């Protein structure tokens, strides 16, 4: 069973995650987001936000988010195009953790690489209800 994000200390380093972005996974993401741009097919590339979202989904296999958790902010930097079918690696750290006004504030830093090269870096801040 995965641990809860709010139980982890600041500085926690998650196990590196490696996963393949299959054509089916990329298509499911684009269908769900309603993204019909032809560019991805022309380039054989995955939408960059899909890379970040799928990495977060893979991370959620290691750690659960308490029900009611909300996304407060997101910073993303795209460094390289990720081809459909590529295998990517995500290294994530719980960079900060604090509590205020009934919420636990967690800042997650992620570095996602493709074929050994940086592809997407992300910093997500999420708010989880603090236990009463």
């Amino acid at each position, binding site marked *: 069973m995965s641990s809860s994000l709010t139980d982890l200390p600041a500085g926690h380093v998650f196990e590196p995650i490696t996963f393949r972005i299959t054509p089916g*996974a990329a298509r499911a993401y684009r269908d*769900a987001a309603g993204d019909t741009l032809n560019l991805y097919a022309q380039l054989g590339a995955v939408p960059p936000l899909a890379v970040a*979202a799928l990495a977060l989904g893979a991370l959620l296999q290691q750690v659960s988010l308490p029900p009611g958790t909300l996304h407060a902010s997101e910073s993303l930097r795209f*460094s390289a195009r990720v081809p459909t079918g590529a295998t990517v690696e995500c290294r994530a750290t719980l960079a900060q953790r604090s509590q205020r006004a009934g919420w636990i504030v967690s800042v997650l830093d992620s570095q996602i690489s493709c074929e050994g090269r940086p592809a997407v870096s992300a910093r997500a801040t999420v708010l989880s209800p603090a236990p009463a």
Partner: protein
Amino acid sequence: MSVPEVAPVTRTLTQAMIDAYAEASGDHNPIHIDPDFARTTPMGGTIAHGMLVLSFISEMMTAAFGEAWLRGGTLDVRFRAPARPGDTVTARARPLESKDGALRYAVECASQADEVLINGTAEVA
């Protein structure tokens, strides 16, 4: 160098879309997909994943800048208000400046009532 205009993107959110996004992304937080749970929260009902709504901004920038966005885009945003099933969300960009070879925009997603859901900046090298 002038900063070109960027065409907006508009989408209407449905619960089916949010459910499909939960499946595709692996984020099954009940605030998004469980109406009974969501009704008990301060949100009062299900809300879309922030990353789903943010994807409209990235789609808008991809349409405008193509591969340059995929290998040199940056986004820095805050989620200001939840987007709900039935909301029609418009992503738009306002040119800010061109600096050191990069184009910078103020970006936002707003609801049909012009409530700002997400705002921040985007830059493309």
